[in-house]
């Protein structure tokens, strides 16, 4: 839970995307209508409203062409419009929207995938296809309970639908997908010949690494609400109210450290002797 206290000053008739964004904020922050009064770190408004004197306001923009009001400290927008808004916005842009998907997925960069496949004795091109008819690995069917593994270890994933693309991007796979799926997920353009795109990535380690990172970034832009709220706190300059409790945990969370990672235990252990024990 973030220490942010966010006021809401938007009227009825919200767009679905604004509603989703507010739900993400409410799940992670202390949220209240501005009419309730009190101190807020920032207030979410739409462009036509007017902030109170001295208020720090976040503007929600549905339309990437809409100008950013001068009073806005940051822009909140749906992930699908974030890049377009960020291209011209004079203030930071924070994408927020859909509920998290595949929160347990950990990014595996192409070099790491190579090593895991080597450790598992997986030879061959290791190209996975995912779509409405299921998944395959180098042409062989993948059981349902191994689909995430395929997404995590394939050298390239050819995703034929949005669910496959999102799963693969969550694991930081180099994903090639048709144009409509790419647009839906925000994946980088690879052209329309997916097999050629896959072959090209297989042949170029640098391109593969860059593409994988871009795919994971697209996934985080849409589905990493925790990261978005952390960004918001940074933009607003809000520090944790009790950093001695959460300081190193926040730093570890910000780097995507898994819950059971050894470094968490080491950090906790290093501070153990400084804590009072009852």
């Amino acid at each position: 839970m973030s220490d942010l206290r966010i006021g809401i000053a938007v009227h009825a008739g919200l767009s679905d995307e604004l509603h989703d964004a507010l739900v993400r904020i409410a799940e992670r922050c202390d949220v209240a209508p501005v009419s309730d009064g009190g101190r807020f770190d920032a207030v979410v408004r739409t462009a036509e409203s007017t902030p109170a004197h001295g208020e720090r306001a976040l503007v929600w923009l549905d339309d990437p062409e809409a100008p950013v009001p001068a009073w806005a400290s940051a822009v909140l927008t749906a992930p699908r419009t974030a890049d377009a808004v960020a291209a011209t916005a004079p203030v930071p842009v924070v994408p927020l929207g859909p509920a998290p998907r595949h929160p347990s997925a950990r990014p595996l960069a192409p070099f790491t995938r190579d090593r895991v496949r080597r450790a598992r004795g997986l030879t061959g091109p290791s190209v996975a296809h995912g779509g409405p008819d299921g998944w395959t690995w180098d042409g062989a069917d993948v059981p349902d309970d191994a689909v995430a593994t395929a997404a995590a270890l394939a050298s390239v994933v050819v995703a034929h639908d949005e669910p496959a693309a999102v799963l693969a991007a969550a694991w930081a796979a180099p994903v090639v997908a048709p144009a409509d799926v790419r647009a839906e997920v925000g994946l980088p353009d690879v052209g329309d010949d997916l097999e050629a795109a896959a072959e090209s990535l297989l042949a170029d380690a640098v391109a593969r690494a860059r593409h994988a990172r871009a795919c994971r970034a697209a996934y985080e832009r849409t589905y990493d609400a925790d990261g978005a709220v952390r960004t918001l706190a940074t933009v607003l300059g809000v520090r944790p109210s009790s950093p001695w409790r959460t300081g190193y945990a926040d730093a570890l969370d910000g780097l995507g450290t898994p819950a059971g990672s050894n470094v968490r235990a080491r950090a906790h252990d290093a501070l153990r002797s400084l804590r009072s024990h009852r």
Partner: protein
Amino acid sequence: MDVIVCGAQVPFVRGGAELHMDNIVKAMQEAGHRAELVHLPTAWEKDRLFDAPLAWRMLPLDADVVISTNFPSYYARHPRKVVWLFHQHRGAYDAIDAPWSDLGLDDDALEVQRQLTEWDTRALGEARHVFTTSHVVADRLARYNGLEGEALYHPPPLAERLHTGEMGDYVFTPTRLETNKRPDLIVDAMSHVSSPVRAVVAGRGSMTADLAARVERGGLGDRVSLPGFVPDDDLVEQYAGALGVIYAPFDEDYGYVTLQAFLAGKPVITSHDAGGVLEWVEDGVTGYVTDGTPEGVADAVERLAADRENARAMGEEGRRRASELSWPAVVERLLSASA
């Protein structure tokens, strides 16, 4: 501006990286800025690998600009962080299969490598700009982390003191006597050199005894000298009086020796797999790029000895290129990237 330069410290070790950090601070100060070095110890074993990055993450760095250099100093957090990357933890990337890397193919090691890649990508991705010391380092950054780095070259230590001199009767190599620097290649090459050219291999390291044994076994006592550590005054004169410099490390990040040789007007003999050295040594123009065998290196030595005028011309071209490097230009580039 107040500038903090961040770097990793390996206690009791002082080499090129430490010199580089000091030189960045000095260059910033000479440009009129307040600059200080902040360095923290680090550990490389996989069980402690993340300790120092986390420590960097927690540091309050109250300055206008932070310049981070090597792993794990780029984990520092600052709104105006610029990275000038010397290298990442190579034992997790390009050198992961080297004997000294403890990251094998067991599940624990695989997860450590995965996590370090994710951490590195995030920490480096925060920077306003990522520079690298060479294209070799930029290529590794792209290959392993999918990130862009811009090569930013800088002058080597002793740049202002190095000078030209006679094309003498020896080839010179100042280097740490360690496996990756391949000083044994030079000793072995000299047994194939028939012209009356000597080799001087200066430096200290774990291969000292091995090299001495090679010299003795090969009967090269009057052809190869191993003077050990050479102080800077002598180093400058050794460069100035050499016919050429042999510098053929394996996959070097940058290679100060190359640039020092050039500033002394000497051509450089290197190997096809020397990494960043190859960004400066152009075969037949500023030196020779060999196949890395003792015979190949010996042949290059013979070619220098057989045509001293050409050797001088190649050295002069190297000097012209290296003379274009300047610390004021580096400072300007680093600070403009932080804006």
